[in-house]
């Protein structure tokens, strides 16, 4: 099913639904008493959610042995960038009214804004190097090294969210995202460690002795 030609467009539309919902809500004035705040926060939430999704692709692929899942990784990664960019746009527009000097001052003054901004700069580099031609030009090895930066993005995004909620000592949601991301990154560490200890050619000999 994952190999069906329709699978990609369907996932594309699904991933766009939250955005469409927010645009619809904004146009019909259905985002509650403070629509600006609702837009900024929801786009941040969806950035984190798509980040969790894209980080889940490789663990799921390996654990279930579904190689076809890899087809969706780039698109999901670009959606992380998309929601992060819309998040930045909402903040710059609705909160800062596009006053560049104010934004620069805000980045310098507020650590959580700085951290969020750094994550978006990294994401931009990843999105810009996501084309086939760039991958080829960079070489697979260097490309992969660069794209490991997504782990740093995940850490920065979590820190950004944590600091934002720190004002109200309200960490319940932060803990949920932290647990998911920790599990997804933890799996990678364990997986890499196991592969190093045992060559892939003899996968199940240890127990046999």
């Amino acid at each position, binding site marked *: 099913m994952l190999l069906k030609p329709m699978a990609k467009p369907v996932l594309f539309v699904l991933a766009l639904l939250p955005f469409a919902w927010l645009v619809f809500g904004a146009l019909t004035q259905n985002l509650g*008493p403070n629509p600006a*705040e609702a837009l900024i926060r929801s786009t941040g939430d969806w950035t984190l959610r798509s980040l969790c999704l894209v980080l889940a692709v490789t663990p799921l692929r390996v654990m279930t042995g579904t190689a076809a899942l890899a087809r969706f990784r780039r698109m999901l990664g670009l959606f992380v960038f998309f929601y992060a960019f819309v998040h930045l746009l909402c903040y710059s*527009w609705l909160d800062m009214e596009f006053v560049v000097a104010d934004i620069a001052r805000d980045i310098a003054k507020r650590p959580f804004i700085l951290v969020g901004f750094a994550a978006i700069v990294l994401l931009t580099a990843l999105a810009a190097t996501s084309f086939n031609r760039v991958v080829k030009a960079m070489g697979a090895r260097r490309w992969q090294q660069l794209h490991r930066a997504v782990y740093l993005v995940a850490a920065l995004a979590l820190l950004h969210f944590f600091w934002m909620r720190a004002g*109200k000592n*309200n960490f319940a949601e932060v803990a949920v995202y932290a647990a998911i991301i920790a599990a997804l990154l933890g799996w990678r560490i364990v997986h890499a460690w196991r592969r190093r200890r045992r060559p892939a050619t003899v996968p199940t000999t240890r127990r046999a002795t």
Partner: protein
Amino acid sequence: MIFDDRAHGFNHGKSSEITPLHHYLGRRRLIQTLAGGVAGAAMASWASREALAQVPRPGKLAALPGARSKLAGAVTMEKPTDYKDASTYNNFYEFGTDKADPAKNAHTLKTTPWTVEVEGLVKNPAKYAIEDLLKLSAQEDRIYRLRCVEGWSMVIPWVGYSLSELIRKVEPLGSAKYVEFVTQADPKTMPGVGSRVLDWPYVEGLRMDEAMHPLTLLSFGMYGEVLPNQNGAPVRLVVPWKYGFKSGKSLVKIRFVEKQPVTAWNRAAASEYGFYSNVNPEVDHPRWSQATERRIGEDGLFAKKRKTLMFNGYEAQVGQLYAGMDLRKFY
């Protein structure tokens, strides 16, 4: 009525001679209309500003009528926020940290019976049943700006009377320098009290001269009706020149003390929330600017935010309370 001489000067007329209220008001209206016609455009715009201040009752809860306050600064001419926004976008952490939570969860709050205990350094400590507290002084309609520390604002028509009326009744001792406000913290009816966001109960405080300032309102209602639970029923404080969190909701104790009280937000994050917390566009919150604010329900999504005013626009009334104080230090 005619006073014929000194001996008969205090004979009262028959009650039938008294002009009925609606006739009196009718005459007033006629005079106003005439005046408006004569005085022209300036007068007409003044009249329409007055009309704006007449807030319709939402018809959700029991009526709580008040007389229009005559106090300087007590009735802003700005457009009141929609009742729906004012009663569904609240910070009342005892009912959850999301601003939509209080309206969803506060129905469990039991507001009858309710007593407010006045204690500490006073001559006449007392336990007031809410019914008696309501009648302690004449209820007034006041329309205040409300500026939240988070950077949004509303305009709320409150009903209540100056806290100073109560303070005079209980006669604070000379040693009483501050007033501490303790709010309800009942884990059975308030689901948020179990959380570790703040230390419960939520405590707020004012310096005695702030508490005595006539703009400091003991409020029992809004929009001509009793307070909805999520807005701090049955009785709360409203201090319009300070950030909203200084105005404690659902009060149960008013305590007169000598030392500056340790308030809930100050205890949670002293570097972010000071004791005074006066609205001040020049002193930023450590994590965001306080120079501007978004008026809820008023400005369009892409409209420029409005400038925050010193003491939330009440500088003329309260500025002298802070003469000579470094407001950056005492934030």
